[in-house]
């Protein structure tokens, strides 16, 4: 088999073999990879593995979600907060296809996942057998790698390869489809971790000349701006980023997935870029003389119109993925490699600087944003509650230590704009795919991976109902997540667009909602609804004080909008404040 040739064997004479079934081998592989939790849903084609799981309950905790999409998102939440590989499992056919949204989300947000799906017997492949789908074909465009196993003896090598590929370099999801006969066959098992795949170069070598060229540009810059992304968090380069920012005195802004790598309170942290990012970094992107992009991919939500994006600036791009260089924005200097190493190299070449005057520009623009937007978001004078003040209250009660898991919509943008982050890996959200329904299951995974952290999910009334069934998982697993639904009785973000660009024709965005508190209580989850400002602080306090899971519904103003905003296709400097 070709896989055998692609994996370099680690010499280890001590590895003993034992005769076991494919299913047992799968479990043993997972244990060998340090997996102690997996999320999934059983069914015919994966039953032999579930049967083995029953035997290994003390080693691996299987979490029965209420939908396979929930399993994939929970595994993502687990991976995002822990930096480890998240594992999800499903049966063939509908089980496998239900994982796809989560896999696609993980692919675009570079989240390491290993998904295991059961498949019909290999002699039935291609015959439209009961619950057969070509999941390898379906998942190909949304996985970093995938593979179908039809023989038990291939299980150890392929799973070892799966974990290695999912985690190394730019992480991503891997799907392994295993036929039922491969699950029941016996073979001589032994496990060796994969450390290398010959056709795969996960971390390109950092070229020191490119680092020097970058440093030279930065040292000569009058108005440098850093925009960092999730690559900093994935590379665990938070300290290096901070050191670079401080030594060279460079204002640093973040993409949505980069949030929390540098504390919100850091004086050189100038906020978020992109469609609903902060005013100053967006405006000044088109004024800086050197733009230093670190572990970010110039997504169109960040750049707006590429024709006008940072045209005046020399662009330096640090990335682990060579395919990102010049993909959207033409760079002057590309520094390939792991951000932890490349930033450490850069640091040595940088001269100390402070750029006071340049930094003042950010402060001035912040003042404008504060007066026009932030003040009324956080300290509203009108009667209705704002999403911003809820976030502010959560910040106060958690002292900025919480991990915030947000869904998709207005509340997400508000959460990312206003949450205060003291710790890294604290902003868990669906960035690239913008998947409604992400937050509730992702929060479950995050809390299970980091039980010592406060995990608060911020969800809209629309997205909540996309995976509301996962309340059952919260209840059964007793996961003490805090769930906040910001209820505006609208698909708010779409309604905002309808208001601004479709003459207020609110086509199918109004939501008649059920009694969310009763639903939560039906799942035996403590719950409260807040409709008035006076009740907010106490309610949030009760929620945070709760040792078990807690549901808080806050009825907010129905037609509030999120600003600043860069309309689609507009230039970043055309950012609107109202």
């Amino acid at each position, binding site marked *: 088999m070709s896989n055998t*040739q692609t994996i370099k064997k680690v010499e280890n004479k001590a590895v003993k073999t034992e005769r076991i079934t494919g299913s047992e081998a799968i479990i043993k592989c997972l244990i060998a990879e340090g997996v102690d939790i997996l999320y999934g849903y059983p069914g015919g084609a994966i039953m032999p593995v579930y049967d083995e799981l029953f035997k290994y309950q003390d080693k691996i905790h299987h979490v029965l979600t209420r939908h396979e999409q929930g399993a994939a998102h929970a595994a993502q939440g687990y991976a995002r907060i822990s930096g480890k590989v998240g594992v999800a499992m499903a049966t063939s056919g509908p089980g496998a296809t239900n994982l796809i949204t989560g896999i696609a989300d993980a692919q675009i947000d570079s989240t390491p996942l290993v998904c295991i799906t059961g498949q019909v017997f290999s002699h039935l492949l291609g015959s439209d057998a009961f619950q057969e789908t070509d999941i390898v074909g379906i998942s*190909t465009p949304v996985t970093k790698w995938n593979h179908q196993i039809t023989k038990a003896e291939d299980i150890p090598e392929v799973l070892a390869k799966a974990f290695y590929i999912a985690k190394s370099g730019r992480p991503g999801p891997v799907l392994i489809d295993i036929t039922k006969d491969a699950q029941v066959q016996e073979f001589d098992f032994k496990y060796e971790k994969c450390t290398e795949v010959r056709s795969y170069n996960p971390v390109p070598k950092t070229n020191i000349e490119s680092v020097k060229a970058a440093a030279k540009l930065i040292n000569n810059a009058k108005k440098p701006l850093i925009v960092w992304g999730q690559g900093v968090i994935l590379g665990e380069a938070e300290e290096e980023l901070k050191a670079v920012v401080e030594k060279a005195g460079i204002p640093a802004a973040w993409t949505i997935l980069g949030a929390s790598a540098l504390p919100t309170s850091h004086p050189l942290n100038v906020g978020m870029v992109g469609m609903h990012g902060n005013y100053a970094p967006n405006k000044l992107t088109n004024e800086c003389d050197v733009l230093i992009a670190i572990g970010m991919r110039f997504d169109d939500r960040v750049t707006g119109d590429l024709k006008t994006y940072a045209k005046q600036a020399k662009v330096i791009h640090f990335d682990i993925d060579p395919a990102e260089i*010049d993909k959207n924005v033409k760079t002057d200097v590309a520094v390939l490699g792991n951000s932890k190493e490349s930033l450490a190299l850069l640091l040595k070449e940088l001269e100390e600087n402070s750029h006071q005057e340049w930094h003042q520009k950010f402060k001035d623009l912040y003042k404008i944003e504060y007066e026009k937007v932030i003040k009324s978001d956080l300290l509203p004078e009108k009667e209705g509650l704002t999403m911003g003040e809820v976030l502010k209250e959560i910040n106060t009660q958690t002292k900025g230590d919480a991990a915030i898991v947000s869904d998709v919509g207005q509340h997400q943008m508000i959460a990312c704009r206003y949450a205060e982050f003291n710790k890294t890996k604290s902003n868990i959200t669906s960035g690239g795919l913008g998947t409604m329904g992400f937050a509730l299951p992702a929060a479950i995974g995050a809390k299970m991976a980091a039980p010592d952290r406060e995990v608060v999910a911020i969800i809209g009334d629309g997205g909540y109902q996309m995976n509301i069934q996962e309340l059952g998982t919260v209840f059964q697993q007793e996961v003490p997540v805090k769930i906040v639904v910001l209820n505006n009785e609208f698909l708010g973000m779409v309604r905002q667009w309808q208001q601004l660009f479709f003459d207020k024709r609110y086509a199918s965005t109004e939501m008649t909602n059920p009694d969310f508190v009763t639903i939560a209580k039906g799942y035996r989850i403590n719950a409260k609804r807040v409709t008035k400002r006076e009740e907010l602080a106490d309610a949030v306090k009760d929620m945070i004080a709760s040792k078990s899971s807690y549901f808080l519904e806050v009825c907010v103003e129905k037609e509030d909008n999120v600003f600043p905003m860069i309309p689609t296709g507009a230039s970043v400097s055309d950012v609107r404040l109202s």
Partner: protein
Amino acid sequence: MNEEIKTLTISIYTENNIGLLNRISAIFQRRHINIESLTTSQSEIENVNRFVIVVKISETQAKKIVGQIEKQVEVIKAYYHDEHETIFTESCMFKIKSELLFEEPQIQNIIKESDTRIVTVNKQFFVLEKSGRRHEIEALRRDLSAFGIMQFVRSGRIAVTKDEMKITELLDGVKNK
């Protein structure tokens, strides 16, 4: 901004894995790039396959495509080349009624002049085979179609580059790491 569209040959050295063809073709499909021809076979290196894909795109597009292709785990290396950097050919086959071979002396001349090979002859039909540039094959087809062609098939382009591609060194480099 409008860059010149060229006929480029993309060479991809890969592991020999089921499913990789899907991954590679999807990269072209997502960007709405039409594949002019695609050939895949073993390469000079044991257990290493080679794809030869001909597309009409700009160099900027080619660079990005090659980057996306190389990103695939099982791709060892990908390159793009223009026509001057490669030596390339296609081959084709014609199936023609046997009686024509004897009744139309002109066919024999065509075969001789175009350097075409007779693969087989039987009572019903004979088969011609020719390798060459696209225009040569097309000219032959034009000439023969006057007499009637029962079947015609043409392969995709196969190409070797004038420059070395150093795949063996690349693979050795990984092994010795």
